């Protein structure tokens, strides 16, 4: 395959479109912040570019198949020993180009995440999911370009791949995440990809790619005959797609795409102690520093029993002696936690059972937390010159501190 892949790497539309693909990838990567302190979210964010890369790739492959390979290359491929591979080389080389754009995004994301203090071992699943999604896009483009002639092939393939992802994304169809990759939109330091879910998703994508290749192969004029053999091959490929689709539906009804990391925990000990999953080490350091500083500012508040241990929830039971760490990575600036997160953390010295249901008491606790957090924010913003907490704030904090703790896993 060296010769045809080499030729298409130099001559395919995907090669011409590589700069555009890189721009798309980087624009989507930098379209939001906060991901640069952890590996998984960074790689999910970089893979989010597949939302546009996949349709573009599919359109380009369909265009090349319909416009450049037709009629001569396709005819000669039909009468050649390696004809099928000669056509597949177009999809493969175009996939390599799109993967290069994705990889550039991944490298940028990795570099920034490394600088941003990301720790632990990244989840490997997103790499397989993103690359396999691009394989699907490329193969679907090849199949559409085989059947649809002329300039419509490219736009049609692009619209189909994009439309299918949006349709499944909005309606679900019981196939959460199908035709997608990199859909994590928030911090993943406390979670990891559920392997069973990822395998089911990749199986569906692999079978769709296989079906597209079979459809392309069936269109070769040398093969074109509706014999038992051809129909059987198509039937088996369709059956595999259906089975893997049903399996994904079954899996997604039983497990979440992401699961809590309930295993090992690290704790950062300063003036307060902040614990969480190992992947959050940098953020825990930031939180510890920020909470410690806040505690100094609040020294004259008159509240003596601030919580000393906080945890970033990562599944399982939470000890009643621990407060809940609120952490939005987007709000970390210059190694300091956002003021709202500091205030919200200090206002939650215990995970209260009432907050997991709706009752007059839960509303009261929420209101108390809001009052405490607002006052803490005012002090931290130095808008209040008197750091002494008013009586109603002290009472509100006391009520939160003495609430009935939630001891079951969430």
């Amino acid at each position, binding site marked *: 395959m060296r010769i045809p892949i080499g*030729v298409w790497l130099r001559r395919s539309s995907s090669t011409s479109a590589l700069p555009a693909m890189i721009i798309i990838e980087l624009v989507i990567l930098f379209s939001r912040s906060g991901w640069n302190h952890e590996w998984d979210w960074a790689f999910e964010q970089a893979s989010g570019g597949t939302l546009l890369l996949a349709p573009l790739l599919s359109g380009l492959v369909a265009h090349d198949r319909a416009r450049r390979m037709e*009629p001569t290359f396709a*005819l000669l491929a039909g*009468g050649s020993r*390696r004809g099928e591979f000669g056509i597949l080389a177009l999809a493969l080389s175009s996939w390599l180009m799109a993967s290069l754009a994705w990889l550039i995004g991944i490298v940028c994301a990795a570099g920034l995440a490394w600088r941003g203090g990301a720790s632990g071992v990244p989840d490997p699943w997103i790499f397989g999911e993103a690359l396999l999604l691009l394989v699907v896009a490329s193969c679907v483009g090849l199949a559409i370009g085989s059947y649809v002639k002329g300039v419509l092939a490219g736009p049609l393939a692009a619209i189909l791949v994009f439309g299918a992802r949006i349709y499944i994304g909005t309606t679900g169809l019981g196939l959460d995440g199908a035709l997608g990759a990199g859909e994590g939109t928030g911090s993943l330091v406390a979670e990891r990809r559920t392997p069973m879910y990822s395998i089911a998703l990749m199986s569906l994508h692999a079978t769709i790619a296989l079906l597209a290749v079979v459809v392309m192969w069936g269109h070769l004029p040398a093969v*074109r005959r509706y014999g038992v053999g051809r129909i059987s091959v198509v039937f088996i490929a369709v059956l595999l797609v259906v089975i893997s689709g049903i399996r994904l539906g079954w899996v997604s009804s039983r497990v979440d795409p992401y699961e809590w990391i309930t295993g090992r925990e690290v704790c950062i000990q300063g003036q307060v102690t902040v614990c969480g999953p190992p992947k959050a080490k940098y953020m825990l350091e930031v939180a510890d520093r920020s909470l410690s500083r806040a505690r100094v500012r609040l020294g004259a508040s008159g509240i003596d029993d601030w919580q000393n241990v906080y945890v970033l929830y990562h599944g399982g039971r939470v000890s009643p002696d621990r407060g809940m760490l609120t952490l939005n990575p987007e709000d970390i600036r210059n190694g300091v936690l956002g003021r709202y997160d500091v205030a919200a953390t200090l206002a939650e010295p215990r995970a209260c059972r009432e907050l997991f249901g709706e009752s007059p008491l839960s509303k009261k606790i929420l209101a108390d937390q809001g009052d405490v957090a607002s006052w803490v924010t005012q002090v931290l913003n130095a808008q209040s010159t008197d750091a002494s907490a008013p009586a109603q704030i002290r009472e509100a904090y006391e009520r939160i501190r003495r609430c009935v703790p939630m001891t079951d896993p969430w």
Partner: protein
Amino acid sequence: MLAVDSLCHSYGDLKALDNVSFSLDPGVTALVGVNGAGKSTLMSAISGAVRPRSGRVSINGFNPYGRDRRKALRLIALMPQLTSFPKNMTTQEVVEYLTWMRGLRPSEARRAAMESIAQVGLGPRARSKVGQLSGGMQRRVGLAQALASASDVVLLDEPSTGLDPEQRRTMVDLIGALDRTVLMSSHVLEDVVEVASRVLVLNAGQIVFDGTVEQLKSLAPKGTEPGKAAEVGFLNVISSAR
């Protein structure tokens, strides 16, 4: 040896090939017919590119639509009527690519491509993009890719179509020098007379004449200009077939 037995093909209700049978030995054989007679369909069907509805093709005993397809395809090469290769590929890339598809190893494909490009006189344009070549040169790229795989049987579908007289002369000389089993479709009788030893006339998907050039010429009325005898003989065959 190439043998075609009871070949039939149709596009919807239109019969393109109707029970076509013949066999060929080394040498140049011309396949002549009016537009739409089924020449390109026959060429494609023989080359293994378009599966016929029924009938059998045998290339040195191998069937391009049977279990020995890979062996058969190694023995045959087609220059299609339409040589519209991707315009941004170079001559060398096109020929190498198609030669590799025919089953040669990469190093062999590279060497054979350069040799055949030189053979058709495009050596200096090997690195030129196809879009920068004239129509005649693009036809020669088509011929080069058919010759590169050193197949025993070469099918040339209207190789001189669209060429100016000088380019046509070059093409005819190239074909005449081939030492293989060649089936060349054409409706330019001048070319046929010059290079072919045998002529097949195809009309409405049927072989209506199978003989030597001299036999075709002999079908012209006595007194016909010698240079026009083949053409008149061909027209007589066609009109009597209708």
